[in-house]
């Protein structure tokens, strides 16, 4: 039976809304903050209680909004008995903690932050217990890890806080991640991530082959969160948090999330051997171990922390038994443990607050100075010990009863004996808490003068111990909620009748043994404690820290070693990867039969081949002499250009040779600043390795091209040849492709050049404004230079050559559409012409006469090309649609005008501007390096000797 209750959304949301409150209210003071922080919690609790009757009647309340339906993740909540129990605990204790913390925290602590984190945590925790979608549950689950990280690290200046927070996050985070896996598997088996659906699919899940992985992964989440052995070690270190946090998270709520989850999943996951042996055994071991360690802890909070570990083990064990009675006991003990343990933590906090110490060995006799605290603490501790008339007794009795008839691997005694030992130890440390803190004589060496705290501090624990006693005396008060919760856990209608006296049962004997034995053990505490301190035992924190440190160290070494800045190695890996994967890919396929005959090899071409090969090998072998390598590169460029001519690619030849020249200029300009020799520093092994890689890459690439050159295939370029003249208005198909069919590529390409110009210019400025400039200034580049900078002959010849070269540039530009040439080559030719002038008469002299800035050229070029493209829009055509017409202007013969030429003009300007801006930038750097500025076009004009009045300036 379920009813819809959209109030659930509000309840879930209220803590998160509340988390915003402290940030605003903190300006109004601590009291106001605490008060207003309590409001949303109280409101949520009241809303929850309005639903309680229905839930106690066996109804479930549901509400759902879709979130990520593709994943099956929805914001869906449901409230059943178990959820109600936990929600009440979370909100109720939350209220008490809010009150307690107001008085606990000092004036220097950022209270606003505290309440924000606290409410975030509360919201997350509340979310876990009312989620009806296991993915949503995961969200809240991880949120509790995160918010508890913030709370544990609240005193961020303390190293223990930071370390404790990180440890808790690492352990519970790891568990949470495992649980993600488990939940996803679970959802996949059930076909839904909705809890209500999954809870119906228990049989299918247990039958699935994925059951065990899912179980283990989910339990990892639960065990880490609930501090089960061997993940128990983070909890004591989380005690670095302020005590309200310990009381709330580490006794009442968060650590119970794991228990909650096991309870929640009980109908689905329990009932198998795997469940029993994993869960019950872990619980049992944890219970005994936690209790044992607790006995020897001197820090009050540590004692309580390990006691919590032990009790969580107890709960886990009960759930692991997998019986309905055990489930009832577990639910009941959850309530009881909450009441006494929260009260105890608060008591510890009060003692710490009043005496300024939590060290049991420095305490004792507080009964006399802090009677009220003594009363509260003693009642709670007796309940923890399982002394009758207190609620702890009841549930422990039920636990022992269940343990007494549980077989473990065929043994009837293992579980009862160990459970009794656990109970015995529990009695011992509980009595120690009472005896060593409150009893005995009053000491005169407390770090502070203790007395009972103000009402605000003792009110909350007092309320809790009242519950301890009430339930202890009148357990039937809890009947309703325990019944509802236990029914929800088991999925069966349970109607437990909680009572004080169960008659003479094995449990009673075990209980008596525990109490007597515990008291005896405490009597022997002093010698045992000495032995304990002497004993060597594994220190969980040290192991964890060592583990983390070694993983971090490994990660550091690995990262530093692998990403060590050795780009040459990265490139080697890249090349090897390409070659190997390429080869593997090839071998997975195959080749069709060759379809082309090979072309003959004329002698001159063979010579060209020899030149290319010799030059390439020489570049490699002589690369240490950088200048020589540049000369050799010149051969390669020349040969390839000639080869392009031979192989029907005149446009390529033109472009290749002019680009190569400009590139060599750039390299020469740069080499001026760089060392002229490359040191011989590669060890032979490296050379051989690189040589092998290089040969492999070369063979691969060569083989690839040899393979496809022997095979013909139809290509799309038949279209280009067919449409070049009719559609593009040009007979040079390559040019028409460049400015028309694929003009968009060309547009991109000139933008690359424009960016290159910009980049180089920007870089030049960065260099001239940075420390590099100092280095430049201090460097002497003037050694053993020839004294003639601007030789007369060069200057004179350039004066004739430059106009001719410009003319050639214009010619090449104009004919490009129909014959080899075009904007790009023309731009380079003009750049080379200007370059000639710069080389002849020097940078400064030439630059002074330069009327158009290169920046502007690039800008115009890119914009003209772009506008030509956009211009087509006016005619309703797409970007870069060209059109052309033949103009007949008598007496001139017909000529063609094409928008593509305008585009090509953009190319021309950009290329020219970019090349010149690059040269300009390099020259500026050189000038910065100390070259003086020439004011005349040539070193010395002999004509000036005779006619000084010449117009040469």
């Amino acid at each position: 039976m379920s009813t819809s209750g959209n109030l659930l959304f509000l309840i879930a949301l209220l803590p998160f809304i509340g988390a915003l409150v402290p940030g605003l209210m903190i300006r109004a003071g601590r009291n106001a903050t605490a008060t207003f922080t309590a409001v949303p919690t109280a409101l949520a609790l009241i809303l929850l209680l309005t639903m309680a009757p229905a839930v106690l009647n066996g109804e479930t309340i549901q509400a759902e909004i879709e979130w990520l339906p593709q994943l099956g993740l929805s914001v869906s909540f449901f409230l059943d008995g178990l959820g109600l129990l936990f929600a009440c605990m979370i909100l109720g204790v939350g209220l008490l903690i809010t009150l307690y913390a107001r008085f606990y925290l000092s004036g220097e602590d950022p209270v606003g932050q505290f309440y924000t984190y606290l409410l975030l945590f509360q919201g997350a925790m509340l979310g876990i217990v009312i989620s009806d979608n296991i993915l949503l549950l995961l969200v809240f689950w991880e949120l509790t890890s995160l918010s508890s990280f913030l709370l544990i690290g609240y005193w961020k200046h303390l190293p223990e806080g930071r370390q404790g927070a990180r440890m808790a996050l690492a352990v519970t985070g790891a568990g949470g991640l495992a649980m993600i896996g488990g939940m996803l598997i679970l959802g996949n088996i059930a076909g839904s991530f909705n809890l209500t659906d999954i809870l119906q699919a228990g049989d299918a899940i247990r039958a699935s082959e994925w059951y065990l992985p899912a179980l283990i992964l989910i339990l990892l989440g639960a065990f880490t969160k609930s501090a089960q052995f061997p993940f128990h070690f983070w909890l004591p270190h989380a005690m670095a948090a302020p005590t309200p946090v310990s009381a709330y998270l580490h006794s009442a709520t968060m650590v119970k999330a794991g228990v909650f989850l096991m309870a929640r999943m009980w109908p689905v996951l329990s009932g198998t051997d795997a469940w029993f042996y994993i869960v019950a055994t872990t619980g049992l071991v944890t219970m005994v171990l936690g209790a044992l360690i607790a006995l020897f802890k001197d820090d009050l909070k540590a004692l309580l922390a390990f006691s919590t570990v032990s009790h969580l083990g107890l709960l886990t064990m009960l759930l692991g038994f997998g019986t309905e009675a055990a489930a009832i006991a577990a639910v009941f003990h959850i309530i009881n443990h909450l009441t006494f343990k929260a009260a105890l933590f608060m008591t510890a906090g009060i003692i710490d607050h009043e005496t300024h110490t939590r060290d049991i060995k420095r305490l004792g006799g507080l009964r006399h100075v802090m009677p009220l605290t003594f009363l509260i603490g003693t009642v709670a501790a007796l309940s923890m010990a399982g002394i009758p008339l207190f609620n702890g007794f009841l549930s422990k009795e039920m636990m022992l009863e269940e343990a007494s008839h549980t077989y473990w691997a065929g043994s009837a005694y293992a579980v009862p004996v160990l459970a009794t030992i656990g109970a015995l130890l529990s009695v011992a440390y509980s009595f120690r808490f009472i005896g060593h803190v409150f009893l005995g004589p009053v000491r005169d060496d407390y770090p502070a003068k203790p007395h009972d705290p103000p009402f605000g501090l003792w009110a909350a624990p007092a309320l809790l111990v009242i519950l301890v006693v009430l339930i202890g005396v009148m357990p039937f008060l809890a009947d309703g909620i325990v019944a509802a919760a236990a029914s929800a856990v088991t999925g069966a209608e349970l109607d437990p009748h909680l009572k004080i006296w169960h008659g003479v049962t094995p449990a009673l004997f075990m209980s008596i043994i525990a109490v007597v034995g515990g008291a005896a053990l405490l009597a022997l505490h002093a010698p045992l404690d000495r032995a304990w301190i002497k004993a060597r035992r594994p220190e969980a924190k040290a192991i964890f820290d060592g583990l983390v440190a070694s993983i971090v160290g490994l990660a550091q070494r690995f990262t530093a070693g692998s990403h060590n800045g050795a780009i040459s190695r990265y490139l080697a890996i890249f090349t090897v990867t390409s070659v190997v994967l390429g080869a593997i890919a090839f071998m997975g396929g195959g080749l069709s039969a060759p379809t082309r005959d090979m072309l003959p090899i004329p002698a001159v071409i063979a010579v060209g081949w020899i030149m290319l090969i010799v030059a390439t090998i020489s570049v490699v072998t002589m690369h240490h002499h950088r200048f020589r390598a540049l000369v050799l590169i010149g051969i390669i460029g020349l040969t390839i250009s000639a080869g392009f001519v031979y192989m029907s690619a005149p446009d390529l030849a033109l472009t290749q040779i002019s680009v190569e020249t400009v590139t060599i200029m750039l390299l020469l300009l740069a080499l001026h600043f760089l060392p002229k020799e490359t040191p011989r520093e590669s060890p032979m092994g490296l050379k051989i390795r690189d040589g092998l890689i290089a040969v492999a890459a070369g063979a691969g690439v060569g083989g690839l091209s040899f393979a496809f050159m022997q095979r013909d295939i139809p290509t799309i370029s038949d279209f280009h040849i067919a449409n070049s003249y009719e559609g593009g208005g040009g007979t040079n198909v390559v040019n028409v492709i460049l400015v028309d069919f694929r003009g968009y590529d060309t547009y991109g390409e000139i933008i690359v050049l424009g960016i290159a110009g910009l980049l180089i210019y920007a870089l030049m400025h960065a260099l001239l404004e940075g420390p590099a400039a100092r280095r430049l200034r201090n460097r002497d580049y003037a050694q053993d230079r020839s004294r003639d900078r601007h030789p007369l002959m060069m200057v004179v010849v350039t004066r004739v050559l430059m106009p001719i070269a410009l003319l050639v540039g214009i010619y090449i530009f104009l004919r490009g559409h129909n014959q080899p040439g075009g904007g790009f080559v023309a731009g380079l030719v003009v750049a080379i012409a200007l370059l000639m002038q710069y080389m002849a008469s020097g940078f400064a002299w030439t630059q002074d006469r330069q009327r158009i800035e290169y920046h502007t050229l690039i800008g115009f070029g890119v914009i003209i090309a772009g506008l030509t493209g956009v211009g087509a829009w006016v005619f309703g055509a797409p970007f870069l649609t060209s059109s052309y017409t033949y103009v007949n202007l008598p007496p001139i013969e017909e000529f063609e005008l094409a928008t593509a030429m305008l585009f090509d003009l953009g190319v021309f300007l950009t290329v020219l501007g970019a090349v010149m801006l690059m040269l300009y930038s390099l020259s500026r750097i050189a000038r910065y390096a100390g070259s003086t500025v020439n004011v005349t076009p040539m070193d010395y004009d002999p004509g000036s000797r005779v006619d000084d009045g010449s117009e040469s300036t």
Partner: protein
Amino acid sequence: MSFIAELLIAISLVVSGIFGFVGSYGLVKLTDSLQRLHAPTKATTLGVGGVLIASMIFFYAETGYLSIHELLISVFLLLTAPITANFIAKTYIARNLKKTDLPDSQSTCGWSIYDDPPESRPGN
């Protein structure tokens, strides 16, 4: 194509080839760098000239139009070859010879490789 044209073309080509070869042969044969300078700068200009003349005759004979753009290459080479040679010579001298290895300039200043120009102008 007339036999005369063919013959002229063939002769030009053969002459060109011979000079082209001799230029590079000199480059290899001569042992002194300055001597080598003489070989290619002379021979190759005529070598290229020969091919260019052949080309001109060829296209004239083929199409009946006088193709003059071959002349441009010749003009270009004639203009640039001296500069090239001059620069290479200076490069050799500057890097391999000392001032004293050269004869005196018999002028007011020494050779421009080693000496600064006279301070004849303000700001120079």
